[in-house]
């Protein structure tokens, strides 16, 4: 084969193999039960798997979550969401439709630019706990009440953190609709 023919053939092969690599993104999106964006208005009526005491400014959490965890820059949270959404193994272990996704931030750096972050479901929704368990336990103050919020409203709520007090953890709860779309969210904080 002449050189130019070889180079053209190479380009075609690269395109084909790259397409095969890219195809898994679509396949795992079909398997995934979570869509990160757009909010809708209908709230989920699926039964709670955890104990929750609700008031306007305080919320009691007592549950284990299971999902993906990593120490990341908070600016890179989208990558962890992608890992979570692409985790066919995790979603394959769901025994019923999830109605909440938890994002659990703790062990913050002093500058609050990075932290240990976990994104997961309540472990009661999974057939086994082969993914690491993280315990959410205690009383949390409300930074953003449960409701249909945009991403920028959620980001603005982080600015309400009172940095004069040491922060133990922050929890985002995303409520899911019948088709696993995010219908509402809230932001909670636990000070030491």
């Amino acid at each position: 084969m002449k050189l130019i023919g070889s180079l053209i053939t190479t380009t075609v092969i690269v395109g084909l193999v790259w397409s095969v690599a890219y195809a898994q993104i679509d396949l795992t999106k079909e398997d995934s039960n979570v869509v990160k964006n757009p909010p809708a208005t209908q709230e989920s009526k699926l039964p709670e798997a955890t104990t929750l005491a609700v008031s306007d400014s305080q919320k009691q959490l007592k549950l284990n979550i299971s999902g993906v965890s990593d120490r990341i820059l908070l600016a890179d949270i989208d990558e962890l969401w992608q890992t979570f959404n692409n985790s066919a193994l995790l979603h394959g272990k769901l025994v019923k439709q999830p109605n909440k996704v938890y994002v659990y931030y703790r062990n913050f750096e002093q500058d609050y630019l990075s932290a240990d972050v976990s994104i997961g479901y309540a472990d009661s929704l999974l057939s086994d706990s082969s993914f690491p368990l993280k315990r959410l336990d205690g009383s949390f103050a409300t930074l953003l009440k449960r409701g249909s919020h945009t991403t920028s409203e959620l980001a603005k709520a982080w600015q309400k953190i009172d940095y004069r007090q040491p922060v133990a953890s922050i929890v985002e709860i995303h409520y899911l609709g019948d088709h696993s779309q995010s219908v509402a969210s809230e932001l909670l904080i636990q000070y030491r």
Partner: protein
Amino acid sequence: MELLTLPLSTDDIWWIETFIDDWFLVIALALFVVELIRYAVKKEFTRGLLGDSVANFVTLAAFILLIALVTATYAGIFFYVYENFRIVELPLTPWTILCCIVLADLAYYWEHRFLHKNGFAWATHTVHHSSPHFNISVAYRHGPLDWLFPLFFHLPLAVLGFNPFIIFLSEVIVQVYQTLLHTETVKKLPRPIEAVFNTPSHHRVHHATNKQYLDKNYAGIFIIWDRMFGTFAKEEEKVRYGVFPRLNSVNPVKVFFSGYAKLASQLWQAPNWSYRWKLLVKPPIWAWQQEQMKK
């Protein structure tokens, strides 16, 4: 399918790469001992063979030292391109790794072909071909710029969206596979394997100085690239190894720098700048032809 899309972390991929690197060297050394015993049994164990093998491992040490010096820059270039120019972000999964291995092998084919067709690149690659022997230690016979050329041929993978950790892992897999090919112990493998994969037989042809075998079988893992692009030759006669003119030395320093020393001498003695330019860009056989014409 679940296993293929199992999400991995960059730590997982780095761990796999280090594991392969470390244990493969141990396996290769064990196989080399087997080869030495075979040489001894066949009464082919000579001082020249021993000296050549020692020189091979000294060049490996020099290569590792150079890698240690350039790794940060090398990796930094990949990460810069990946962060700023990737067209998509491919997930860190076994599926992605398998695809990247195929493309890294194809990239290696073209890199290897370039090493044989460009004077400046040949000056480092000739070190690897200069041994008159063919055993596992020859796999570790490196030239001073062997670390440089993979950069240009594998960088496009970062643009395509493969995480640099996956690219480096794929490069390592393509390289360590070829370690096992450097042997005369294995004659020919079953036909389906010989048809698809690079084998010791195919790689003996690549190292040959037999005229019909020159510049053939550039493959890393898959010989199908050579079959596809017309650079394949089947092993049908006994192979002679080495380069022209023969490097009659087991001094590791002489071995390591032989290619660039010869190129520097040729450049110094060149009649004009056009000749110098051609020495750098044309295939090494061009310089040999010019010398034959002068004689």
